[in-house]
């Protein structure tokens, strides 16, 4: 059970590095493969094009609508597909709106604090359990893995958190989900892989475990650290149900996802009868563009970070995934 995760690692990373250096060119078809048929190529193109469109087009429509003038929205009868009169009015309005601005700051704060805490705890634990033959590491590992299969469920967790005074507290959105055993196991499998010779040499030179972790193990596993940080950050940024559970009524403390849920998801209706939920102060601007602005604001941090991260998914950090 110890090797719950076997991860594609160095070999693939090295391969990916060389690929990046030599600029990927169009690989030749291997000689034994039949030449592609026109029908086959078309079917492939249409399928993949469809897959991409299903993901990209909705995001495009939402972004365009958020930048559209009320006139453009009226002309389109709702969501705007082709840009037709653009303005940043909705963004200025939304960032000036105390509800949305506070929510944005709350979301950023929870994500930053939560991710930092999760990373410190997970990295320490992953390294602490990664040295084979250390005292008790097998027992602790089993203790961790059990939680992946057995859980008390919703109600007992709720009772524990509220029993500790977590109702309406920020930490209720962070601490209960601060540790992901899956992420620890991914990190651990990388750390176990760090060259034993290197570590032994450092130990001979008098380096303790803290020093080894900081100066040898961490610098050699930057890619996996980045990916795990992204996983945690996305988890905190997207956290929604915990808010519903622990601070459903205290709206000034709501993060952006909950504001999105309350004002956009619940305020949905036909254009013209839309109840934007942002009060009458915004009556003069397009409620729909305001709603779409909240959607885009919720999406933007991800779109900023994602391009830097996605190359690591390819570089084989997570490819091996789960294996017996």
């Amino acid at each position: 059970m110890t090797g719950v995760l076997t991860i594609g690692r160095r070999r693939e990373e090295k391969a990916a590095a060389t690929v990046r250096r030599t600029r990927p060119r169009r690989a030749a078809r291997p000689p034994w493969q039949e030449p592609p048929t026109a029908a086959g190529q078309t079917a492939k193109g249409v399928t993949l094009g469809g897959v991409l469109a299903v993901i990209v087009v909705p995001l495009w429509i939402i972004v365009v609508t958020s930048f559209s003038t009320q006139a453009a929205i009226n002309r389109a009868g709702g969501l705007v597909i082709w840009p037709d009169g653009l303005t940043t009015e909705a963004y200025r309005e939304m960032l000036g709106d105390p509800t949305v601005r506070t929510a944005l700051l709350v979301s950023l704060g929870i994500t930053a604090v939560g991710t930092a805490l999760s990373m410190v705890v997970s990295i320490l634990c992953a390294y602490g359990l990664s040295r084979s033959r250390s005292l008790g590491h097998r027992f602790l590992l089993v203790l961790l893995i059990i939680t992946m299969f057995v859980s008390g469920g919703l109600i007992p967790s709720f009772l524990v958190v509220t029993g500790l005074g977590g109702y309406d507290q920020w930490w209720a959105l962070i601490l209960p989900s601060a540790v992901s055993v899956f992420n620890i196991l991914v990190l651990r499998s990388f750390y176990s892989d760090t060259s034993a010779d290197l570590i032994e040499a450092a130990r001979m030179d008098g380096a303790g475990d803290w020093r080894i972790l900081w100066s040898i193990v961490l610098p050699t596993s930057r890619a996996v650290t980045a990916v795990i940080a992204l996983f945690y950050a996305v988890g905190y940024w997207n956290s929604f149900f915990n808010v519903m559970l622990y601070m459903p009524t205290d709206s000034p403390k709501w993060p952006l996802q909950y504001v999105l849920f309350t004002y956009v998801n619940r305020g949905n209706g036909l254009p013209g009868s839309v109840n934007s939920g942002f009060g009458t102060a915004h009556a003069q601007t397009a409620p729909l563009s305001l709603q779409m602005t909240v959607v885009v604001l919720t999406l933007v941090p991800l779109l900023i970070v994602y391009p830097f991260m996605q190359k690591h998914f390819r570089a084989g950090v997570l490819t091996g995934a789960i294996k017996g």
Partner: protein
Amino acid sequence: VSTAGSERVARPVRLSWRIRLRRDRSLLLMAVPAVVLLVVFNYVPLFGLVTAFQYYDPLAGVWHSDWAGFDQFRQLFGDPLFWEALNNTLYLSFVQLILFFPIPIALALLLNSLLSQRLRNFIQSVVYLPHFISWVLAITIFQQMLGGAGVLNQFLRGHDIGIWDIMSNPHTFALLVTSQAIWKEAGWGIIVFLAALAAINTDLYEAAAADGAGSFRRMWHITLPGLRGVIMLLLVLRLGNALTVGFEQFLIQRDAVGHDAADVLDTFSFYYGIATSNYSYGAAAGLFKSVISLLLIWGANKLAHVFGTDGLYRR
């Protein structure tokens, strides 16, 4: 079993635990914060499951609440809403297994057949993206596309065809949530299959082609056997999680389609346990789910062993 002997030979002299404790104390110290968090937020709630056998009173707490024996369960099994939620859960699980499961495999095969590495990388980046989008956001996007005021109905109204509100129709709800799940997770799901495909020795294809095997037979005799292990593993996990079909997704859409279509076991615990402060009742439903899930994981794993694959752990 076979490695036990060699391990015994390789193992160095056993140190006493005192010496090992002194040697490994910083390693143990490092594990402490994570272990403490897990104990507080995962293990303590496990003991909190005793509330399922109580008439839990928040003022009295776990220690002083009255014992109920199996009363909560008797009430649960006589509750038509509970059976409705269980029924929905199993039905949605089944629909997702049939409609969702093959898609990442097909997509991975398709992607793997592309020759241009750059195009492959680009498509991967795009299809992984929805995995990182929250359920609130994903459902809002669906609402804006397919809802009563969405793009689809804008078009239909514009052409006087009438309105087709997919988002609040309980009869097609199973298809709706499955397509949402596919939109959000199918792309991410291809990662494991791509890794398995990359591990297949390409010499096999060449040899098979030299022996006159067409592309279909190569797929049948080389590619699919290469994916067998991963497919079995994911099937085992899916079966073991048959009672977990998603939570926020249903919570968010329950108001639109009604509880008779959207209540699953997890939302049942929430609505009839926490929202009504009927904690013991919700805990009983949760315990029921946990026990059945454990049995399912165990059973699915046995099944995998019967089929000669590893399953979750090796025999």
